[in-house]
């Protein structure tokens, strides 16, 4: 494992290998030592003197008018300091969402405590502050919210819209995208294939629940918040606006974070309430979510219904795609606005050339926990939909499904390929890729022919075994910008400060590898500071597989500048030309004399009061920006071998292969870790996990006994092939992100394999494929086949 490296890039073979050549090496992580020794510091591990504990009282009703909230008993309980309902919040604004060009969502933002109505089970209706968490929980139990269930909850995004508020519909908008003449294409098509597909409601479910600790320094009028991460600077600016403070009066700090997956670190009601309480009660306030709360209050995702049609010519070439999507946003618009629905139609086409496209996404509010992003948002869903469609076209035309994909792939010489559409507010321009090439490598990697033979043989012996493949295009490296400040300290250690964030993905190590490789130092000498708004003026956080691309490139630029400063200073000190200085392993050596200086010695020479500094700028340090208007587009394939128990309907993944082109791999072991970890979440979404609600909107999946996450027993043997055939032309290292690739293709590949195992093309139309769903679906499918309609 430790020796694993990606193929070396071309280099000058006359030179000895550099000690500091870290890019491409599967080095161990800088993050790990405190985490394995129990000395990590998560927000739950932090306490402040005189702190209070908050406990949220949540709605037990999915919808209804609040006729009264009785807090009297709680207020009299010992240890209770305050109990608030919405009327105590004054003119505190609702939680804002990130500005996009999508308009019309203003009326749907969430108040920090329910105002007038409740709209989902789990919605905060009151909050208790007490001296200890047990007392706070006791007091919260006594708060009674009287709710008049005046209307039936809307629980289906395709249902007739109702009223969110008087005169305001639960159907705020329909997004549209497209180009070309789809009507003409459908009129001339040899085949029209239509599918009605759905994806269940899932979420990231990090092992650490959410938490927040806020403190208000009354004298200096300064607010500190630990816990809300992912977008620290955006969160800081919004908190400042909400409280009427300057951003310089608010600081966010990122402790260790127990997994993010898109859902952690957005601004939630609890973060704001904890800050407000710290200011008003003039005591630090801590809130730690329990797991049951998490399952009804943290962002959910994925739930969409897709009606998709393809027009295809006689040779199986796509002529047009028409897509109608219903997105189940849940009860409020949260910080992402309508981005998941927007991306779903903006990125749906994946690797295929589609001459005409018309898509509409109906964004609907329902009486469920609000939704936002979960790792591979929109791509898990749209890859399932698109690859189901391709499989259906193959079944209809009789063309082999892989051959069909090859006929429709965008060719590598068509890159960069402009989709003529936007997603995440940027033009979708596929930057680079060899889709045919990767498919061939993926087939060879898993031994697809042998697999198919094996599956057929096992089926002949009575087992239900099948092989499925899905192809996908990811996106990564979302801009707009990132800033890095790199400083060599007088002790030789290297501090790298970034406004990006860490959610456990290993960003400190990746950034250190890029810095050390560029500068010529030991990566273990690097200390990466992130997620702290006090340490750097700007930052865009950790999401959208962006950190290695954005912070990575800003780091490389800063390290390059520092390297040149070091060479120049070293040359002066060693009395040689800067071009003659080489830096490796933290030592600058004059090639001709062999004399050398450590980076620490050079940093000391550049100290502000050093007589050797001359007129040079003080400090061995540099700041660098990286701006990027366009995302890049890594791509790959998932191949699943599944076994279905026909008796119980249970599907087990037997073996699994993922081939992924990451442009350039900074740390192959960490990329594999991201991909295999992503697969676990993908298989959860494909087979096990779902937030279910009863017909009154009561959530039925609020424990780990009801919301089933994969354990090691569900994980298949998984092989990962990391390819570097299509480096991104958008950054000098050629890096693309890898945070989401393990999730993206999994639902589609597993669905296809189940069809194959049961020899029923087009069987799976919904995820997750639970045993109950599969048994019912087989019965439905076979009945329809008997009538000749499936």
């Amino acid at each position: 494992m430790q020796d694993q490296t990606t193929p070396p890039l071309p280099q000058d073979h006359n030179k000895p290998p550099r000690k500091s050549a870290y890019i491409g090496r599967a080095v161990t992580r800088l993050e790990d030592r405190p985490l394995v020794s129990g000395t990590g510091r998560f927000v739950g591990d932090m306490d402040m003197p005189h702190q209070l504990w908050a406990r949220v009282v949540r709605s037990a009703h999915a919808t209804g008018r609040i006729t009264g909230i009785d807090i009297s008993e709680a207020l009299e309980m010992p240890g209770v300091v305050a109990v608030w309902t919405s009327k105590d919040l004054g003119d505190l604004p609702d939680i804002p969402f990130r500005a996009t060009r999508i308009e019309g969502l203003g009326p749907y933002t969430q108040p920090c405590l329910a105002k007038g109505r409740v709209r989902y089970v789990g919605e905060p209706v009151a909050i208790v502050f007490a001296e200890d968490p047990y007392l706070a929980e006791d007091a919260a139990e006594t708060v009674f919210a009287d709710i008049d269930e005046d209307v039936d909850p809307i629980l289906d995004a395709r249902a007739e819209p109702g009223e969110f508020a008087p005169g305001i519909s639960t159907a705020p908008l329909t997004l549209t995208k497209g180009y070309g003449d789809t009507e003409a294409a459908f009129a001339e098509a040899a085949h029209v294939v239509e599918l009605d597909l759905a994806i269940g409601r899932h979420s990231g479910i990090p092992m650490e629940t959410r938490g927040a600790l806020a403190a208000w320094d009354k004298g200096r009028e300064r607010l500190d918040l630990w816990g809300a991460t992912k977008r620290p600077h955006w969160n800081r600016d919004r908190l400042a606006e909400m409280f009427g403070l300057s951003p310089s009066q608010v600081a966010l700090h990122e402790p260790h974070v127990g997994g993010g997956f898109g859902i952690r670190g957005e601004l939630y009601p609890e973060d704001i309430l904890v800050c407000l309480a710290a200011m008003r009660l003039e005591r630090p306030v801590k809130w730690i979510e329990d797991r049951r709360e998490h399952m009804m209050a943290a962002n959910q995702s994925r739930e969409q219904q897709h009606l998709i049609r393809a027009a295809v010519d006689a040779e199986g070439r796509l002529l047009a795609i028409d897509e109608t999507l219903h997105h189940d946003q849940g009860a409020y618009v949260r910080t992402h606005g309508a981005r998941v629905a927007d991306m779903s139609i903006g990125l749906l086409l994946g690797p295929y050339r589609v001459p005409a496209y018309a898509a509409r996404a109906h964004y609907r509010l329902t009486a469920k926990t609000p939704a936002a992003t979960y790792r591979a948002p929109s791509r898990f869903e749209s890859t399932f939909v698109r690859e189901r469609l391709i499989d259906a076209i193959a079944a209809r035309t009789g063309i082999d499904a892989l051959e069909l994909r090859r006929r429709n792939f965008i060719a590598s010489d068509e890159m960069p390929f402009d989709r003529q559409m936007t997603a995440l507010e940027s033009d979708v321009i596929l930057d680079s890729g060899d889709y045919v090439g990767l498919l061939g490598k993926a087939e060879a990697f898993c031994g697809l022919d042998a697999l198919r033979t094996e599956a057929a043989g096992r089926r002949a012996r009575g087992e239900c075994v099948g092989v499925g493949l899905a192809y996908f295009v990811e996106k990564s490296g979302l801009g707009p910008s990132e800033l890095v400040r790199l400083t060599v300290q007088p002790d030789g250690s290297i501090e790298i400060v970034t406004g990006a964030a860490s959610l456990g993905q290993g960003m400190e190590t990746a950034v250190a590898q890029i810095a050390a490789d560029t500068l010529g130092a030991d990566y273990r000498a690097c200390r990466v500071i992130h997620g702290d708004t006090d340490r750097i003026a700007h930052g865009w956080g950790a999401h959208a597989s962006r950190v290695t691309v954005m912070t990575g490139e800003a780091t490389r630029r800063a390290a390059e500048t520092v390297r040149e400063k070091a060479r120049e200073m070293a040359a002066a000190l060693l009395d040689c030309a800067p071009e003659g200085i080489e830096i490796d392993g933290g030592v600058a050596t004059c090639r001709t004399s062999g004399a050398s200086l450590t980076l620490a010695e050079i940093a000391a020479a550049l100290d502000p009061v050093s007589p050797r500094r001359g007129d040079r700028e003080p400090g061995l340090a540099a700041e660098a920006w990286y701006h990027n208007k366009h995302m890049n587009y890594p791509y790959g394939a998932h191949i699943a071998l599944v076994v279905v128990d026909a008796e119980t309907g249970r599907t087990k993944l037997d073996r699994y292969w993922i081939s992924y082109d990451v442009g350039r791999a900074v740390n192959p072991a960490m990329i594999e870790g991201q991909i295999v970890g992503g697969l676990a979440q993908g298989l959860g979404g494909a087979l096990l996990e779902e937030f279910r609600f009863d017909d009154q909107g009561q959530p039925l999946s609020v424990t780990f006994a009801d919301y089933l996450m994969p354990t090691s027993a569900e994980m298949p043997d998984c092989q990962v092939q990391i390819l570097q055939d299509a480096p991104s032309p958008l950054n000098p290292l050629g890096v693309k992100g890898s945070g989401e690739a393990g999730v993206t293709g999994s639902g589609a590949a597993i669905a296809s394999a189940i069809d194959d195992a049961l020899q029923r093309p087009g069987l799976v139309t919904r995820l997750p494929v639970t045993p109950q769903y599969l048994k019912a679906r087989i019965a439905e499918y076979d009945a329809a086949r008997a009538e000749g309609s499936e």
Partner: protein
Amino acid sequence: MSDKTDITLTVNGTERTISCVPRKTLADALREDCRLTGTHVGCEHGVCGACTVMVNGAPVRSCLMFAVQAEGAEVRTVEGLAPEGGLSELQQAFIDNHALQCGFCTPGFLMLITGALEKDPGMSDEDLTEVLSSNLCRCTGYRNIVRAALAAAPAIRARAREAAA
């Protein structure tokens, strides 16, 4: 319910007397009263295993046990795994095999694996792999946790046999 009780227990070899309410879980007592925050609370209903510690030599879910039930017990937490200034074989194997990402579930896995092997040094690799399905990890997909456990197992078995001999 709010009257505190004195409890004496041995944590990582040190005897401690703490005072807590009878309903306080062992996990909370370790974290708050002993200030050993390496034991994490992930679900509070005994499923995820992030709070796994060893009580009298056996791995247990400390969220499902009251602190008062640990009166007189020998408790071992992740902070007690490593020899002074170093790391245990299993901790090192987790680093070497990239068996953690966010690290929140890691202490629970370390205690589960160490506890299972110390209790039953004869446990086969297959059974050890089976035991790993007791705990949840949301980052790694488990593959590297299995690798780390198998890599460190011989050393843990040998030490456990030595201690028993």
